[in-house]
């Protein structure tokens, strides 16, 4: 009886607690599926913290929210930079009259953005004391920066007053970068959150607590990061004159994405971000209209989608829209190419690849929505050729067995058990269980090793692995970001975890990466990609597709791979929300 009474009490309390909807304020409700560590741009290494930082901080350049393929446009920069004849000197003019958000660090003075703030911010990225996760973007790129970093590596404190030749303010509104060697991806690096601009006074004022007090120039304000599960951003009242773009792709007009063209942004009053890690609650929240944008959890796929592109009627009736986009990523099972088994045994690698039933995996784990990867470069990035079909990524057990025999292990005889390392979550385990199952068919025994993330990272960086699984997402839309994964000098502990070394590949790679974007470079990328694909340094798995659903009232959303600057353009249609809210 008592227990029952208690339950009643709790239940009644819950009913009393459910919140009333407010239709006067323009609020966007978003989800972040991972915890946010802090708001220091130089540590914005993952997509989710980048997304949060992008609401408060800004950089010199940003990706155009509508144009595809992805195209950079000036943000805090006045225009795209002028590049010197040597191709090494970049001069950037910045906008005038841009102010930082209010902060006690400025002692009541309106603080204007100056060129030296960029110099300071990029020096922070290089500061050896701060150990930024983004240092690689400028490592060995700017003249004098590495030397400056090395100079203070052992010192007590870093001196920011030193002049650096490759990183100079010309005047208050002009910055000049000088590269050591041609680096065509440089502007991408400047568009990444790592080089978002911060103010020295704020950093000094808060010291180590700086990461909880974001003060940027961006469209939204978050006075203090409380490390809770909910972040509430409010519109920056002093935001500069920045307008919604008026050009895009052809389809954008039909999709209503240009309805707000030319309006001053931001278009909403508030953005609320809830941090929810588990899939089910997020999904339920979306179905109850508690959030406006969500990636469809794979387990709820059937509930939402008919075929591959069509929403179910239930969802359609609520005005919900589906955004299905191929991601710029590749998943693979890396083979340790320095392991004696795989090193000089291309046929073994090929046999394993051929025995992997990708169609089955696609069905079981990706609802048939992923694309079977043919090589290193994913679709959507120059260097990927749709026509190219890798002969070793088909499912062909006969050929696999034949190659295995030629590799010296007929029916797997003589081959030791292969251990494939992965993370310790359920999906990773299941994916590899299926892989192991496939390998059994040609007589190879595969053991699945589950690891915590640090363990896996250690096994990779110290080369103590036979195989491991990994997914690589693009940092910027350039094939260099992918091909580098197989470049010999990048081998572990670098990003070439497969420890693949192929002199011919390395030679071509070095040629390609210094070229500016051009048909010639694309051709070279294609050549490298297809060459290395046949070598099977990895078992290529998939290029995944992401499915997002948005509520009817969320306006101006278009899928973006590099979406940290996207949120300032979003809008909400309160009328629609009010009408539809009855349906939820």
């Amino acid at each position, binding site marked *: 009886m*008592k*227990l029952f009474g*208690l339950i009643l009490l*709790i*239940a009644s*309390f*819950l009913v009393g*607690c*459910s919140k009333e909807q407010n239709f006067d304020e323009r609020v966007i409700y978003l989800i972040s599926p991972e*915890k946010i*560590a*802090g708001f*220091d741009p130089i*540590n914005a*290494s993952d997509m989710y913290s980048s997304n949060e930082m992008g609401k408060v901080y800004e950089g010199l350049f940003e990706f155009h929210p509508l144009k595809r393929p992805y195209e950079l446009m000036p943000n805090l920069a006045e225009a795209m930079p002028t590049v010197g004849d040597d191709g090494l000197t970049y001069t950037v003019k910045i906008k005038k009259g841009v102010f930082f958000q209010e902060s006690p660090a400025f002692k009541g003075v309106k603080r204007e953005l100056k060129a030296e703030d960029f110099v300071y911010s990029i020096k922070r990225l290089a500061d*050896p*004391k701060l*150990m930024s*996760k*983004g*240092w*690689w*973007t400028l*490592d060995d790129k700017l003249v004098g920066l590495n030397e400056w970093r090395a100079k203070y*590596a052992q010192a007590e404190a870093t001196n920011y007053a030193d002049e650096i030749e490759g990183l100079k303010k010309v005047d208050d509104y002009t910055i000049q970068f000088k590269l050591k060697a041609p680096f065509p991806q440089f502007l991408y690096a400047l568009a990444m959150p790592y080089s978002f601009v911060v103010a020295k006074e704020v950093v000094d004022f808060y010291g*180590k*607590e700086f*990461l*909880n007090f974001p003060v940027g120039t961006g469209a939204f304000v978050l006075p203090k990061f*409380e*490390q*809770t*599960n*909910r972040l509430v951003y409010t519109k920056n009242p002093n935001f500069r004159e920045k307008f919604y773009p008026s050009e895009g792709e052809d389809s954008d007009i039909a999709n209503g994405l240009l309805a707000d063209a030319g309006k001053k942004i931001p278009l909403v009053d508030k953005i609320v971000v*809830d*941090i*929810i*890690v*588990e899939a*089910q*609650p*997020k999904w*339920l*929240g979306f179905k*109850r209209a508690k959030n406006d944008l969500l990636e469809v959890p794979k387990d709820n796929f059937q509930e939402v989608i008919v075929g591959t592109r069509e929403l179910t009627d239930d969802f359609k009736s609520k005005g919900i829209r589906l955004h299905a986009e191929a991601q710029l990523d590749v998943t693979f099972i890396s083979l340790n190419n320095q392991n004696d088994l795989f090193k000089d045994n291309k046929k073994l690698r090929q046999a394993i690849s051929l025995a992997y039933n990708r169609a089955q995996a696609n069905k079981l784990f990706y609802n048939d929505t992923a694309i079977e990867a043919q090589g290193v470069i994913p679709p959507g990035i120059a260097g990927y050729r749709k026509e190219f079909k890798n002969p070793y990524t088909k499912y062909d057990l006969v050929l696999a067995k034949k190659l295995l025999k030629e590799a010296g292990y007929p029916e797997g005889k003589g081959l030791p058990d292969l251990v494939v390392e992965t993370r*310790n979550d359920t999906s990773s385990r299941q994916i590899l269980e299926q892989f192991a199952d496939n390998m059994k068919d040609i007589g190879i025994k595969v053991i699945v090793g589950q690891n*915590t*993330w*640090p*363990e896996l*990272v*250690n096994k*990779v*960086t*110290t080369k103590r692995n036979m195989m491991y699984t990994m997914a*690589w997402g693009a*940092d910027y839309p350039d094939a260099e970001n992918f091909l580098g994964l197989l470049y010999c000098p990048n081998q572990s*502990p*670098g*990003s070439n975890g497969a420890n693949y070394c192929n002199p011919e590949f390395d030679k071509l790679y070095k040629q390609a990466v210094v070229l500016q974007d051009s048909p010639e470079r694309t051709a070279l990328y294609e050549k490298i990609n297809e060459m290395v694909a046949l070598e099977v340094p990895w078992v290529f798995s998939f290029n995944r597709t992401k499915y997002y659903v948005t509520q009817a009232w969320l306006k101006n959303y278009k899928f973006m791979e590099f979406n940290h600057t996207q949120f300032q353009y979003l809008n909400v249609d309160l009328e629609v929300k009010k009408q539809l809210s009855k349906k939820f």
Partner: protein
Amino acid sequence: MTRYILRRLIYTIPVLLGVSLIIFILFNLVSGDPTALLLGKNATAKQMVELREQLGLNKSLWLQYLDVVKSAFTFDFGRSWQSKQEIMHMVKMGAYPSLALSIPAFTISTILSILISLVVAFYRGKGIDLFIRILCIAGMSISSLVYILVFQWYFGYYLGWFEISGFEQGFPNFVPYVALPAIIWIVLSLGPDVRFFRTIILDEIYQDYVRTARAKGLGEKTILLKHVLRNAMIPIITYVVIQIPFLILGALLLESFFGIPGLGGMTLNALNSSDFPVVKAMAILSSVAYILFGLLTDILYTVADPRVKLK
């Protein structure tokens, strides 16, 4: 008494040394090199070397252990390697949701279990006693994970009665979020608690003084609620209080399933990302709590049992 407390507090020293040692050894064996992880997917070898030095991982093991010991006694745990946040602040932030879940759940489940076991003891040997005993044992025989999965799916997802995940600061905002995990918590603890309390109470019921109380003409209910319960409180206090330090760590599984940003999740996260300063802090804080609550148990004894004198 003061002397006893003082002595017990001094006893924390060897225990903390032991805890630091175990944690240090385990961690050194476990984690290997955390730098690759901390620097992200594009880390360079050089940067890893630099970071190792900065984190003090180049020092001799002995000096590294001394650092651990130092932080164990100063409670200065520094900053998390992962989030760079100050650890004591993280602990404070995590303690709120953890306690928001664990305190009500623990209190309710303890009181409820005592009530039920009193009822069961009153009807000992009768049908209801047998029924509840079997219910308890059956309840204990199902994995806690199954409860979480099924309750979350059925009450949260299928019926939609509760928030499935998340947390909001402040009462009563958090209530909808902690309600379901708290109910699961209560269901999970009722079985073992009732069983334990029942045994304790029955042990007391057969004592001589209960016979005296009956001979006085006291009613069975008075005997149970006054004489027996008061004596049974002594073992019950031990059982209950000793759980408290682990409450502070939160209910790890519940927190992770219900997205409650508590200390349990924080610890698990730290373990999963080799965030040694956080692991160290949590181990040391919880062992200090363990010792302090052990001391509290002893002090409560003297309140519950006049025979106990602390010397």
